[in-house]
């Protein structure tokens, strides 16, 4: 019966539609007590927003009274909740009802509970504090025997659940994975997926159960588990390669139509499942030939089967194409995929066209010829009425930009830019234009004009890197000094013209750029005098619409120009005006200018012309204070001790370890204290209150943090052609292109060629200028000549060097300030004494830390003995190696080599080194190598021994440059001749440029025997990250400070193998195998530190729970923690 009533009720609204003027009569007819209905009808009857507001406020106050009245039954409460949800959807605040929603979920019967849960999921968000009150209800419902209650609880958990309460429900949800009902299993899997998203560590231990879900007999459960797998594989694809076969099999079954018909969607078998699987395969097959080979078949079949002309098949095709292009390539599949892209691009349906363009942007870098195939479509899309299509086309063009088509593409982008109003689009587009302009600008005038457009449109929303980079580019210049001057002069002239225009407002950032350029480079002008420029700047300064920050830039520019000017009326007026300014910053600048102006000589030396790139000499040691210090000392003042030294002394006086938790008691500001004073002053703000304006200007340009947009790509060896050539070239070559295009068209479709309208010709002209320089030379409509200039602007390496120099000096300072604790000797004795007593556990723990710390600082080299791959550097041990390596017969040779090694070892005795291993060799010669882990680099030593009885000549060893390494040959290595039975060595110091797990270093050796042909042998060695990790010896406080200052962190739980399941052994492993320095041990937690050479520190905090080790890495480098974690996992799980 109630069923029928329900149906009638749901049908009723339908009836309203048929009655014209729905409000009145329908309301009368509606028999239901639903007050929601009344409310909704009330609202629809209203005409103004104001009336609506009044009505709803009234409604809300009624509701507020109702929900808090004790007489309200749960049934009424449910009704109120529905109305509250409705009010909130209309945008009114109903927060007073949140707590009642939770109550309803807790106390109501099924019907009410359902609404209660729904209201909670709509009202609250993950971190809402009220959500904690829901946890108990969820736990109760999860344990309920009623299926619907369990479903509701699982549904709410998968939507919002407080992260910190996960442990409370996790075991219950895990149990549900074995539930007999598939709907429960499915929801449980999704709840765990949600947990994986918000707290991956907490569900790590159930990964094995996910595999069960993947093999579930119910398709829904299996499909749900794919969400988790997709996520996990995205994070770490290498860990799941073994599942590739399973995913391929599942996809084969789905594509083959083996699933129940229920899962078909418009007669396509389970499209959602197919797409999810294709995504997973894409991640697995990326850069992995073997895994990719497993999936070629099924991808081929997917492409073949998806023939139905329906959106959903296109969705699958799109995913398929993307996968084919992402995995290890197979030409046959690529061909098919390219055809598919053609289907999309040429489709009359706009959605498909859009996706076609999107697909092209994915694949264009791999296969630029595809863009050529579809060039006419792309041109059409460029003028499409739908801005989204246009934008996607520009994105595509952005990716095929080169030195030849830059002007056309940037012009198109600027056109789009002028039409768009949305900030996000402007920021994005402006960034791209600036990037392209810096990379490929054809000439000075174009570059400056384009950047002018960028600055005037992008104005104050764009990324601040853009003006910074632009100014740096102007200041640093390129290889050719005269061209630099021309560029600067052009910039100055164009800005003066822009400033002459009346009633135009430029964005503040643009004005700042202008004022800097005018201040620096106005001296290049012939006609205009500095006075004229100053007058213009002064006019701007008097403008009220200009911010005080910009005014500071303007005054700085005037200050720079003043020494060049002959008369100074305006400057004096300016000083007068601004020394009484209410803005303290401007007043300060004005006073500075005033004082400098009085001393013309000082001003000229302080503000030299065109020296913005020269390095400033800053007395970092503050030597001018020396006399003062000496005086104070002679009067009995105590010598200065740095903070860490004071702390250490305090500690050693107390004679105990620091058991305080690190981190909390230190202020993060202390960290900057370690940097050189020069570094700090370099970082000072432009509008800060330091004494010299001019110096501040120069320093602000050298900020290190600036993103190098045009850095590496722009730095290519210059080819022969000069700018002059290129400006002449285009007209000629364009004609030839048009001819070519015409020919192509004629070949393809003669009839079309005849009816070609003028418009089409224009389009083809555009096409030829857009697609020039793409694809191979065999393509018909390609410019005959090769890419003459690839990158217009290169910067000098000078500044880069200066910066790296600065870094190393800072690094040295850092290192010198770190010193290992000195009090440990004492502790070790203390420990031994106590151990004999063997009294209690607490002492043992304490002892452990003492032992570890003690051995660390006192006996680090002896520990090395235990390392399998390392040896303690001692000549006696080394002699053994030599015997192994040299045949006994050549004792003289081994003796000789020993002596030569002895000299080598003199400098390396302090360092650990590896065993000698032979890398290659012939009968006459043998090449072996070992590595010395020096404090500042990895030293690779190659020993070439002559085993024959005659001389080896022309011996030359070369190491090929490798991507991730910086290799420097150590001087004084070797003569090209090796006497009979003798050994020579070659040394190379190797630095890692960016973190990675393993790299390969290869090279070759040449030599020539007497009267025989030359021989060349190739060899290679593997280097691992660990070769570049060194202990970082710092104190606990320094650790605390560093910890707070690092932003990149990685946390992970690692299960330890049985042999290591204790703090001491775990520590030992980490210290020995990874060369971490044990900073401190606090209870069951440990602090370790290391650095990646040359100076990237990484800190590790860990805690032991049973056999699980919770690792927490932090570093200043974003990738290093991940790599170290990987190594940690290897050693902890492995041995």
């Amino acid at each position: 019966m109630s069923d029928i009533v329900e149906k009638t009720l749901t049908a009723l609204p339908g009836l309203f539609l048929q009655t014209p003027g729905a409000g009145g009569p329908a309301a009368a007819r509606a028999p239901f007590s639903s007050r929601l209905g009344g409310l909704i009808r009330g609202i629809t009857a209203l005409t103004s927003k104001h009336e609506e507001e009044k009505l709803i406020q009234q409604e809300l106050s009624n509701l507020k009274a109702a929900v808090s009245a004790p007489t309200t039954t749960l049934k009424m409460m449910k009704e109120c909740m529905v109305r509250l949800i409705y009010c909130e959807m209309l945008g009114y605040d109903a927060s007073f009802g949140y707590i009642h929603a939770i109550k309803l979920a807790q106390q109501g019967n099924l019907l009410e509970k359902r609404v209660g849960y729904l209201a909670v999921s709509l009202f609250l968000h993950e971190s809402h504090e009220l959500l904690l009150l829901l946890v108990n209800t969820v736990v109760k419902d999860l344990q309920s025997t009623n299926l619907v209650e369990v479903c509701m609880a699982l549904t709410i958990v998968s939507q919002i659940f407080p992260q910190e309460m996960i442990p409370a429900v996790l075991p219950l949800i895990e149990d549900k994975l074995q539930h007999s009902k598939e709907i429960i299993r499915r929801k449980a899997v999704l709840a765990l997926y949600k947990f994986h998203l918000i707290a991956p560590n907490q569900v790590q231990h159930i990964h094995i159960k996910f595999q069960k879900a993947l093999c579930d007999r119910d398709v829904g459960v299996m499909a749900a588990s794919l969400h988790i797998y997709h996520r996990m594989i995205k994070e770490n694809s290498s860990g799941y390669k073994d599942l590739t076969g399973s995913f391929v099999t599942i996809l084969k079954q789905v594509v083959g139509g083996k699933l129940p018909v229920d899962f078909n969607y418009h007669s396509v078998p389970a499209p959602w499942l197919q797409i999810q699987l294709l995504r997973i395969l894409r991640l697995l097959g990326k850069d992995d030939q073997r895994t990719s080979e497993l999936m070629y078949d099924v991808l081929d079949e997917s492409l073949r089967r998806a023939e139905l002309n329906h959106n959903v098949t296109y969705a699958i095709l799109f995913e398929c194409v993307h996968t084919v292009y992402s995995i290890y390539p197979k030409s046959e599949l690529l061909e098919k995929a390219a055809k598919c892209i053609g289907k999309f691009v040429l489709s009359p349906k706009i959605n498909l066209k859009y996706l076609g363009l999107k697909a092209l942007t994915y694949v264009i870098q791999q296969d630029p010829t595809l863009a050529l195939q579809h060039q006419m479509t792309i041109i059409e899309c460029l003028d499409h009425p739908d801005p989204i299509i246009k934008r996607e086309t520009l994105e595509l063009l952005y990716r095929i930009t080169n030195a030849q088509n830059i002007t056309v593409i940037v012009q198109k982008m600027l056109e789009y830019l002028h039409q768009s109003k949305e900030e996000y689009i402007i920021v994005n587009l402006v960034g791209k234009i600036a990037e392209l302009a810096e990379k490929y600008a054809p000439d000075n005038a174009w570059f400056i004009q384009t950047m002018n457009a960028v600055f005037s449109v992008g104005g104050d929303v764009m990324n601040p890197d853009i003006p910074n980079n632009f100014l740096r580019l102007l200041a640093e210049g390129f290889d050719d000094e005269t061209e630099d001057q021309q560029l600067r002069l052009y910039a100055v002239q164009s800005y003066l013209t822009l400033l002459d225009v009346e009633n135009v407002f430029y964005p503040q950032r643009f004005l700042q750029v202008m004022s800097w350029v005018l201040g620096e480079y106005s001296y290049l002008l012939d006609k205009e005098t500095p006075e004229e420029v100053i007058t213009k700047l002064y006019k701007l300064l008097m403008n009220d619409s200009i911010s005080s920050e910009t005014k500071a830039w303007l005054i700085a520019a005037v200050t720079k120009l003043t020494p060049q000017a002959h008369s100074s009326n305006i400057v004096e007026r300016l000083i007068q005006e601004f020394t009484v300014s209410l803005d303290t910053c401007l007043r300060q600048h004005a006073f500075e200018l005033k004082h400098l102006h009085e001393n013309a000589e000082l001003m000229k030396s302080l503000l030299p012309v065109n020296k913005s790139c020269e390095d400033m000499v800053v007395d970092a040691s503050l030597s001018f204070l020396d006399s003062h210090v000496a005086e104070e000392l002679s009067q009995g003042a105590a010598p200065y001790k740095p903070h860490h030294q004071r702390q250490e002394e305090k500690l050693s006086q107390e004679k105990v370890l620091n058991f305080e938790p690190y981190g909390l008691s230190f202020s993060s500001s202390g960290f900057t204290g370690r940097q050189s004073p020069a570094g700090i002053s370099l970082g000072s703000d432009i509008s800060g209150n330091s004494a010299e304006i001019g110096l501040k200007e120069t320093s602000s340009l050298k900020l290190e943090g600036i993103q190098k947009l045009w850095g590496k790509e722009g730095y290519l060896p210059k080819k022969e052609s000069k700018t002059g050539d290129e400006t002449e070239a285009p007209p000629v070559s364009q004609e030839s292109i048009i001819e070519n295009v015409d020919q192509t068209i004629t070949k393809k479709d003669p009839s079309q060629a005849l009816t070609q309208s003028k418009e089409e010709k224009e389009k083809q002209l555009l096409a030829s200028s857009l697609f020039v320089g793409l694809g191979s030379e065999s393509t018909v409509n390609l410019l005959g000549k090769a890419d003459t200039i690839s990158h217009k602007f290169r910067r000098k390496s000078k500044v880069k060097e200066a910066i790296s120099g600065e870094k190393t000096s800072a690094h040295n300072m850092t290192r010198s300030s770190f010193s290992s604790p000195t009090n440990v000797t004492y502790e070790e004795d203390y420990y031994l004494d106590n151990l004999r007593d063997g009294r209690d556990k607490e002492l043992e723990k304490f002892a452990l830390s003492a032992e570890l710390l003690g051995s660390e600082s006192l006996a680090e080299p002896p520990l090395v003995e235990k390392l399998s791959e390392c040896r303690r550097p001692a000549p006696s041990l080394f002699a053994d190696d030599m015997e192994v390596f040299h045949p006994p017969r050549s004792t003289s040779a081994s003796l000789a080599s020993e002596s030569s090694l002895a000299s080598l070892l003199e400098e390396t005795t302090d360092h650990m080194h590896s065993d000698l291993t032979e890398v290659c060799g012939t009968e006459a010669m043998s090449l072996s190598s070992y590595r010395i882990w020096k404090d500042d680099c990895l030293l690779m030593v190659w020993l070439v021994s002559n085993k024959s009885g005659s001389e080896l000549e022309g011996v030359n060893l070369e190491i090929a440059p490798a991507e991730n390494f910086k290799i420097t040959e150590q001087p004084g290595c070797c003569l090209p001749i090796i006497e009979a039975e003798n050994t020579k060595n070659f040394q190379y110091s190797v630095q890692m440029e960016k973190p990675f797990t393993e790299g390969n270093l290869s090279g070759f050796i040449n030599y020539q025997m007497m009267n025989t042909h030359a021989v060349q042998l190739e060899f290679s060695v593997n280097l691992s990250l660990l070769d570049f990790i060194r202990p970082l010896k710092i104190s606990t406080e320094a650790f605390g400070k560093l910890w707070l200052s690092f932003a990149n962190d990685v946390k992970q739980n690692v299960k330890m193998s049985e042999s290591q399941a204790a703090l001491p052994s775990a520590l030992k492993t980490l210290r020995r195998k990874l060369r971490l320095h044990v900073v401190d041990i606090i209870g069951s937690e440990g602090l370790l530190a290391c650095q990646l050479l040359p100076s990237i520190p990484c800190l590790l905090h860990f805690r032991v729970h049973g056999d699980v080790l919770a690792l927490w890495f932090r570093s200043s480098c974003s990738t290093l923690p991940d790599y170290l974690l990987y190594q940690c996992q290897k050693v902890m799980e492995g041995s």
Partner: protein
Amino acid sequence: MQFMLLFSRQGKLRLQKWYVPLSDKEKKKITRELVQTVLARKPKMCSFLEWRDLKIVYKRYASLYFCCAIEDQDNELITLEIIHRYVELLDKYFGSVCELDIIFNFEKAYFILDEFLLGGEVQETSKKNVLKAIEQADLLQEVRS
């Protein structure tokens, strides 16, 4: 999926489901901007929009707009089909659904959505299974009440 919005041709919000935590203020701002942008688009235009760093996929059914926000690497076409499948489910449940069904029974529409999408991911793609789950819950609650 980041969120789903249903709104009428007049710009009145009919349903909202957020799968990412956002403040009420942000939600309101996003809703206002999106409703404006989508309503301003012409019928022949593409069903996809780039909006901030998200992709918006929308489709109009009679007087109602269904609008989903996805990330850039997600598949736009299949999102259109998600919308369509949801409409099919509503249609089957209400029996040729119209906007008024959703207005007056919006909690039902939410229940159906929760059985189809959970936490922003597709939970169940079989139409039969989704409706079975809903019917089960409806039936039980009626027995009790």
